[in-house]
């Protein structure tokens, strides 16, 4: 097992190199550069703009810029953001906690809802209940997140619900007691987590439903029923465990995506997360900030998959780690 883990970690290196080089080249190839917005300012002369470009190293050939970044990365320095002129690690760090909070709570909502819904959908497959659930799932899947967020915020104002319109904390909250602060954050977390959670429920339910349906068709399930086991034990103790493979893999992806953020929802609900930060960075071609996020994302992805594979091996004795 340790050799397996070790091998996976080593495989991470060429993968990260590939991802980072590709991201860098794509950003570089896109028209314009970070100083683009400055070119339309009547109060800035071309000389000043050229000086800014030189300071940011943007006048160097593309491979030189990439190698400089790589060299810094090897010394664990992710560079400085063009936009903010502060270290990338500071920027990502300042938003990491908020992002994790949102990701974990929305994942919790998705998964906690998906299990009972998915199981019921499989067990009551092809009945009216299943059809209603399918419809609701597809509805949840089709509504764009940012639209649902706007709708909920609008409802807050329209029906004067005791929820804030965006943000993560209330002003002056830093002087409140610990539990009051926790409650405050939870109140702010409700709408974005619900928006993201409901988006995830739909697909998770479908996966679980189809996985479980496959298992329920198997002969050993019939055997278990014939032996007189209560239906509840058949489903929850035997069938579900065998249907979990897909879910475990999905869980690995979920882990990998914890630090990606959800840009549009964050923007609407003013949740100070990484999604918003990185979206703006991509749009303004702030190379180092984007590369920093891409690198971290790549590492998380590999680790997430690794954990998923280990869990899979632990859960399913048929799977062998090679």
């Amino acid at each position, binding site marked *: 097992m340790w050799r397996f883990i070790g091998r996976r970690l080593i495989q991470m290196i060429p993968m990260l190199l590939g991802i980072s080089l590709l991201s860098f080249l794509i950003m570089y190839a*896109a*028209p*314009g550069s970070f100083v*683009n*917005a*400055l*070119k*339309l*300012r*009547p*109060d*800035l*002369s*071309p000389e*000043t703009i050229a*000086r*800014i470009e030189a*300071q940011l190293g943007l006048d160097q050939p593309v491979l030189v810029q990439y190698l400089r970044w790589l060299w810094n990365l090897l010394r664990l320095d992710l560079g400085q953001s063009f*936009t*903010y*002129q*502060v*270290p990338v690690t*500071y920027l990502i760090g*300042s*938003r990491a906690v*908020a992002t994790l909070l949102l990701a974990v709570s929305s994942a919790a909502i998705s998964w906690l809802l998906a299990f009972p819904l998915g199981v019921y959908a499989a067990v009551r497959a092809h009945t009216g209940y299943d059809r209603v659930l399918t419809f609701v799932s597809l509805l949840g899947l089709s509504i764009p997140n940012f639209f649902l967020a*706007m709708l909920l*915020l*609008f409802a*807050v*104002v329209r029906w004067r619900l005791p929820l*804030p*319109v*965006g*943000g*993560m*904390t209330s*002003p002056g909250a*830093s002087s409140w007691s610990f539990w009051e602060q926790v409650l405050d954050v939870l109140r702010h977390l409700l709408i974005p987590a619900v928006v993201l959670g409901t988006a995830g429920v739909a697909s998770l339910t479908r996966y679980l439903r189809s996985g479980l349906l496959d298992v329920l068709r198997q002969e050993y399930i019939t055997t278990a029923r014939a032996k007189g086991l209560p239906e509840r034990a058949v489903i929850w103790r035997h069938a579900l465990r065998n249907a979990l493979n897909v879910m475990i893999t999905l869980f690995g992806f979920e882990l990998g995506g914890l630090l990606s953020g959800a840009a549009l929802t*964050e*923007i*609407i*609900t*003013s*949740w*100070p*997360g990484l999604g*918003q*930060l990185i979206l*703006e960075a991509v749009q303004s*071609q702030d190379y180092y900030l984007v590369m920093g996020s891409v690198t971290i994302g790549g590492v998380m992805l590999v680790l997430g998959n690794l954990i998923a594979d280990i869990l899979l091996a632990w859960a399913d004795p048929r799977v062998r780690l090679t």
Partner: protein
Amino acid sequence: MRWLRARVALAAVLVAALWVGTATAGVTTLDPEVRPVSGGKYGGVFRYSVLGDPKTFNYFLAKETSSTDILDRVFEGLTAADGVTTEVVPSLAKSWEISPDNRVITFHLRRGVQWHDGREFTADDVIFTFDLVYDPNIPNNFRDGLTIDGQPLKYEKIDDYTVRFTLPRVYAPILRAMSVPIVPKHLLHDAWREGRFNQMWGIDTDPRQIVGTGPYRMVEYRPGERIVFERNPNWWQVDQDGNPLPYIQRLEAYVAGNQDVQVLKFLNNEIDYLAPNLARVADLELQAEEKGFRLINGGPAFGTNFIVFNQNPNTVPQPKLSWFTDKAFRQAMAHALDKESIIDLAYGGLAQPQWSPIEAANVFFHKPDVKQYPYDLQRAQAILAEAGYRKGSDGRLRDPQGNVVEFELLTNAGNRARETIGTLFKADLERLGIRVNFQPIDFNLLVRKLSETFDWDAIIIGLTGGVEPASANNVWPSSGALHMWYPFQEQPATDWEARIDHLFEEGTKYLDPRERKKYYDEFQDIVAEQVPLLFTVNPEAWFAIYDYVKNARPTAYGGLFYQIGEIWLER
């Protein structure tokens, strides 16, 4: 003997009272500025919303309004601009003298002004700030406005409260350029000496360390959420009764993702003030009375949107070049632009047509009676016919050589107003027989075409505006980088462009604004006649503000914050 002792005792008491009295007096500034306001209530929190986080707290590195809008509460310059009249007014400099040859300006600084950390503001800070402006390693926005014909100003400290500037030649815009924010030498000088200035005061700095002289200082910054300001108790502006301004104790600026969320926050009374998108003004008005706020029209705003035809002989092929360089063609196009419909469709009726290159909001320099081109397709047709353009039997317009008139109109995708303008213009030109391929494209792509490749036919774009006409000296002089229709000319390509070059040269040589106005008036007439840019409309600036905010008088030029010290809350 007893009366002597009594007298001494009385004198001692008086002296003590005087001493205690002055020690507890609010104002320590020796040169306060008295503002035309009185009776305001102290205290309260004023809440508003901003669309993006500040990117830095170092004014010299700030490149966008999300940063400068925040820093403008904290820092001030030698001069400022009046939010109502747009004139240059004293700020940290209480007065100045200009030499008879107009080349030497001596500023007298306000005495007793305190930095937020209690140290006194002196001429050393001014000298230091200008050292930063001209430092080639600090790419800042101020240097270009403080450089005349490529030369910097000479500046010297005369004494602790006097600074003298010597200009290479007379240059009228210089007083307005003296609004460059003064930063504290005692906190930044060492870092600058060691070459670390560009790393100072990024957003990872404790906001309390950002020290300025302005009415507010930052006390809290939560990235992506809010910025909180506290009142500066030692500010140099006072009200009519000598009480120090500002009245309001705290400002809170919440970061919101987009304008719709801002409107929701306002309706929920989470913020007290909003500058709404014009499309929302009508339905805000419906709710105003019930919710207790009012909507104020601040008048036409600065900033322009226009259509420009490419006249660059190096990149535009014939026959397009001959159409776009033909004044009659451009004038006909001007008659085909339906500004009233643009006002109704893109701005909810809340805009005014623009004819002059200097906006109506620029009350002093704007010339209202320039040539206008009312929307009249028949007139457009007549002008085109006179110039030799004929509509064929297939309904398509052809130039005198028989080429079908057809071109590509671009703008940046996502800008609703510009997309509306393009759609309307295209439809009108169809009726003249001209086929227009209207294409919103990615902003970066557009900028590249405008600044590097110059391969475009017609573009709808805009520029920010300002009060000083010479600040657009990248745009109007023919050698400019933003002389959109044909930039970087070595020699002016036409007589009228040569004349504009001359007018812009001369326009800065007179300090008397009335003298200058003659040059800019002629400039506006030339541009209106030649229409290298077809201006569209100037939207109005509207503000929504709750009734408990007193003495709020927002304007298009100054917004609400030009008078942030003079408003108060009555709840």
